[in-house]
């Protein structure tokens, strides 16, 4: 089995800690960890990026179901290890927070759904309070907020320990929406499963399908035609556009700027309507396919169609930038330091607002991004203001990319001819979503998916988010949460 975009290195469980330390010393960064069962043998893989080297590094530990936890050394691996414990039945010794994550306290599924044995167990149980640090004190109050909360929002349960306005401790309990997406892929035809990737996180339909298709294409060695590559950029940037307008609408809503909120949501609606006219789907679904696109799109005149949205969007961003009452609530709110962003695994605009200059479109180009010019905005302050500035710049870059890509379209095929190889292949695909780095790893056997691992940007950023809530105040909470722009479905999968 070969895999093109990654170099693989075998490691013994006993030397794992030392190897991990070496990697950190040579400025590598851990991205994710997952497990697989290959011919009944447990394989745990750690993926790292290596600065300028476009090739990712995979560390592989074979044959052990008990491994030393790396969380104390690499905090961002904490959730990945807990997920492997919950779903794969693995053990990580010395984990600083060894509590359940994906499968809630009070719930169980046996055998482990991504374990050695193929079972048909169902997730069952009854509500039980999550494991929380004990917070004691004279005036301390506990607030359990959710899972059904005000407004039309995604499901999650948020626990606050607070005194008056001051938040002492905050704990988000997610995974109420866990649908077992990774297991759902297993056994499906790799060609057909694009529809599942589109439904991991609805507002990330394009990026999920794109990263998935690219993973299969890397496994099968498929070259996607240039027209399809450019069209992939176009639909991915349209997705970014409506997501970012929604972000600003929601942010303005939390700072009680009513017209600003309405304005943002209206621009989002107009991009979605444009998407509907262009592709038949407001979420740009049912377009991507392994090898390219399912059908051609007439996107040559997109730049002129977008013109009114570009002008109004620019005026809208400028107005927000001139509104002191709005900016006042963002400045100094929810500060994430560069060290915390790096250690805990922040990604996307959240990471870039804390000084981490990373963007998969530039650092590990895919689709047609290598042929297009764009800037990657970075800010240093790490507050809600910096996060919104990064999003605003990224929105402008998305527009520039749409104009460039549509201008470069030339007639040609939109789907590669390929034959499905027999035997076993591993593939890796990624995309820079509006929320950050998304990764798909696929293992295919005779055209059928054996294992799919999804690393979603919200899984990374939800782990980081509480760090910016501890020690702040209740008034800022909603603004801070909106400034992160998280989804829950993507995290829960």
């Amino acid at each position, binding site marked *: 089995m070969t895999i093109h975009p990654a170099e693989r290195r075998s490691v013994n469980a006993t030397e794992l800690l030392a190897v991990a330390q070496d990697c950190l010393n040579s400025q590598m960064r851990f991205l994710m960890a997952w497990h697989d069962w290959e011919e009944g043998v447990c394989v745990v893989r750690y993926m790292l990026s290596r600065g300028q080297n476009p090739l990712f590094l995979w560390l592989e530990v074979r044959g052990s179901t008990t491994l030393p936890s790396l969380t104390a050394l690499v905090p961002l691996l904490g959730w990945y290890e807990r997920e492997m414990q919950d779903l794969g039945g693995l053990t990580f010794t010395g984990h600083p927070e060894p509590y359940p994550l994906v499968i*809630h306290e009070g*719930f169980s*599924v046996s055998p482990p*759904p991504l374990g050695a044995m193929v*079972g048909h167990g*169902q*997730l069952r*149980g009854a*509500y039980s309070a999550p494991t929380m640090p004990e917070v004691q004190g004279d005036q301390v109050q506990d607030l359990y907020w959710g*899972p*059904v*909360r005000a*407004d*039309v*929002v*995604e*499901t999650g349960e948020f626990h606050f320990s607070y005194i008056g306005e001051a938040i002492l401790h905050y704990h988000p309990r997610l995974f*109420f*929406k*866990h*649908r*077992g997406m990774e*297991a*759902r892929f297993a056994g499906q035809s790799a060609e*057909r499963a694009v*529809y*599942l990737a589109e*439904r991991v*996180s*609805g*507002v990330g*339909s394009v990026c999920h399908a794109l990263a998935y298709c690219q993973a299969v294409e890397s496994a099968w060695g498929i070259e996607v035609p240039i027209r399809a590559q450019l069209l992939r950029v176009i639909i991915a940037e349209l997705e970014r556009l409506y997501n970012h307008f929604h972000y600003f609408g929601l942010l303005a809503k939390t700072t009680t*700027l*009513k*017209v*600003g909120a*309405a*304005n943002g*949501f*209206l621009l*989002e*609606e107009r991009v*979605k*309507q444009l998407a*509907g*006219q*262009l*592709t*038949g*789907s*407001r*979420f740009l*679904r*049912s377009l991507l396919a392994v090898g390219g696109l*399912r059908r051609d799109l007439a996107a040559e005149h997109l730049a002129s169609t977008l013109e009114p949205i570009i002008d109004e969007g620019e005026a809208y961003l400028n*107005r927000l930038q001139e*509104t002191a*009452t709005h900016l006042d609530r963002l400045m100094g709110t929810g500060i994430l330091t560069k060290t915390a962003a790096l250690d805990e695994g922040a990604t996307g605009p959240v990471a870039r607002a804390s000084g981490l200059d990373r963007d998969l479109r530039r650092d590990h180009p895919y689709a047609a991004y290598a042929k297009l010019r764009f800037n990657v905005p970075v800010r240093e302050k790490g507050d809600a203001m910096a996060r919104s500035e990064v999003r605003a710049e990224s929105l402008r870059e998305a527009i520039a990319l749409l104009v460039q890509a549509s201008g470069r379209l030339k007639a040609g095929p939109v789907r590669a001819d390929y034959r499905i190889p027999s035997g076993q292949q591993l593939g890796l695909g990624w995309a820079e979503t509006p929320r950050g780095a998304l990764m798909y790893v696929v293992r295919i056997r005779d055209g059928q998916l054996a294992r799919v691992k999804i690393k979603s940007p919200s899984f990374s950023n939800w782990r980081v988010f509480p760090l910016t809530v501890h020690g702040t105040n209740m008034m800022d909470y909603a603004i801070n949460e909106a400034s992160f722009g998280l989804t*829950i*479905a993507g995290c829960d999968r």
Partner: protein
Amino acid sequence: MPLWTWTGLKAGKAATRWPTRGVDGQQGVVGMPRLDLKVCRSGCDACANSCPTGAIQMREREPVIDYGRCIVCQSCVEECPEGAMQSSYDWAFGVRSRTDLIWSTALESVDAKELGRRVARSQRRSLHIRHVDAGSCNACESEISALDNPFYNLHRLGIFFTPSPRFADLLMVTGPVTATMHAPLLATWEAMPEPRMVMASGTCAVSGAPMDAGYAGASGLESILPVDVWLPGCPPNPAALIHALLLLLERMPQYVAGGQYGAG
């Protein structure tokens, strides 16, 4: 805040007046595929094989479609060698009876008007909704929250979202109802005053498809709550949501009967 007041006034109204008149905003948006049995070559099962959610079953060599399982992926349209499956703009698929989503040539379905509780006259022009996400992919939430944007401006129809189930007339559910959301969903339902209604919004909530198998799968609202309106779609667009809400309030007709659009 004179800047924003001025901006808002200058922009004027963005709201559509649909369904009274004006546009629904869904130009080009593809809906459920239509089946033309006259062109269908019996014996071929390409559509059923292409369907990822099992919405199409072959019965006596003819396809039978359950639109309650359709995720609008258009695979059957691409795979049908005869062109009997055609893309359509039929997205207003809200129905009062689950059986109306299932294809039936005999059109044996009971008249939609006879089904379900009649909504009280006092509720027809004022409806408060409590939304519960029971495990969706968030596309449904994206479209439901779009109802409050200036284009659809749901308030103009006298329909509002409420934070508390105590003030809610309608429970709008998305997602297949995951194991962990089962109890919170029922608790929300219990907290609502009577008369209370339920809407299954999106294909997941209608049938669970495509999230129904597997260890964390579930099959929607059918065996959980008494549903008043079923609205498949992946996701249902805002105009489809408005149609389903107005259908519930008996302010718009049902368009689908026996799985056929335009027969209601």
